[in-house]
C-alpha cells in the first residue's frame, strides 16, 4: 500500500504534464490560426489589387508603345527615302 501511495503523485504529475502540453499545443494552434487568418485574407485580396494595379500600368503604356512603333515606322520610311536619293549609283565622269 505505501508503495502504491508513492507512485500516485508521479502519475498525477505526468497527467498534468500531458494536459499542459496539450494546452500549449492547442493554444499555439489557436494563436497561429488567429494571427494567420487575417494574413490569408489579405493574401487572397492581394492578387486582385495587384491585378488592378498591373492592368492600370499596362493600359497606361499602350498608347506610348503604339506611338513608339509608329515613330520607328516613320524613321524607317525616312531611311529608305534617304537611301533612294543616294548618289552612289550616279555614273562618274570618265
Amino acid at each position, binding site marked *: 500500500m505505501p508503495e502504491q501511495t508513492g507512485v500516485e503523485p508521479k502519475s498525477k504529475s505526468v497527467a498534468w504534464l500531458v494536459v499542459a502540453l496539450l494546452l500549449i499545443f492547442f493554444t499555439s494552434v489557436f494563436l497561429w490560426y488567429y494571427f494567420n487568418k487575417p494574413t490569408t485574407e489579405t493574401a487572397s485580396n492581394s492578387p486582385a489589387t495587384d491585378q488592378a494595379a498591373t492592368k492600370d500600368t499596362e493600359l497606361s503604356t499602350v498608347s506610348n508603345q503604339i506611338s513608339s512603333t509608329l515613330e520607328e515606322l516613320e524613321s524607317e520610311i525616312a531611311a*529608305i527615302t534617304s537611301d533612294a536619293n543616294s548618289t552612289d549609283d550616279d555614273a562618274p565622269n570618265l
Partner: protein
Amino acid sequence: MLIQQMTMHRIFNTAIAIAVLSLMLGQAGFVTAQEKTNGDQLRVKAREHRTEIDTALTNFRSARGEKRLEKLKVASKRIVSVRTEALNGLIARLAESKKCKNLSEAQLSEIKAAIQSIITKLETQDSDIASSTDLTKAKTAIKEVYTNNKVFAAVIPATNGACLATRLTFLIDGRLNTLVEKIKAAGIETAEIEALMTKAKSSAEAAYTVYLGILQNPAAENVRASFSTAKSHLQTTRQELGAVKSALAKLRADYEQQTKDGS
C-alpha cells in the same frame, strides 16, 4: 446593377486584350539598336569603297596611252565587286535579319531571285569589261554598271522597304487581328478598327508590290516615282495604324470612365 457588372466585365476583358496588344506591338520589335547598326553597315561600306574607287579612277585619269585601259579595268573591278559584295550581304541579311523575318517563303524567293539576277548581270558586265580591248566601249560598260543596276539607290532601299511592308502586314494580319477577335468576343464593337486594319493592310501590300517591282527592274526610268508611290502607301498604313491606336485609346478611356462610374 447586373448590366453594369456585365459591362465592367467586358471592358475588363478588353483592357486585358489591349494590354496584351501593347506587349505584342512591343515584341513586333521594328528596329533594335543592333539592327540599326547592321542596316547602316552597307551604307558605311559603300562610302569606304567609294574613296577607294575614286582613287582608282584618279589613277585612270592620270594614266596615258595603253595604261589608260589597264587602269580603267582596275577601277572597274572594284566598282563591280563593291556591288556584288553588297548584294551578297543583302541576301545573307534576308535570312538573318529580324527586320526581314516576316517574309513568306514565296516573298523571300522572289526577292532573292531579283537580287541574284542583278549579281549575275554584274558578273557578266565584269567579265565583258575585263576582256574589253576598246577604251570607249569599256567606259560605256562601266557607266552601265552604275546606271543599269542601281544597287545602292534602288536595290538595297527597295529590299528594306519590302521587308518593312511585310512586317506591317504580319502585324496587322496576325497579332493585331487575333487581338481584335478577342475584343470582339468580349462583346465590344470592332467594326471601325477592322475597317482601319483592312485599309492599313491593303496599303502595306501595295507598298510591297511597288518595292518588288523596283527590285525586279532597278534600271527603270520611273524608279524614283515608284519610291514615292511606295512611300505614300507606307504613310497610309502608318496613318491607319495611328487611327487604330486612337480607337484603342478610346476603348481605354471608356474603361476608365466605367471604372469611375462603378466606384
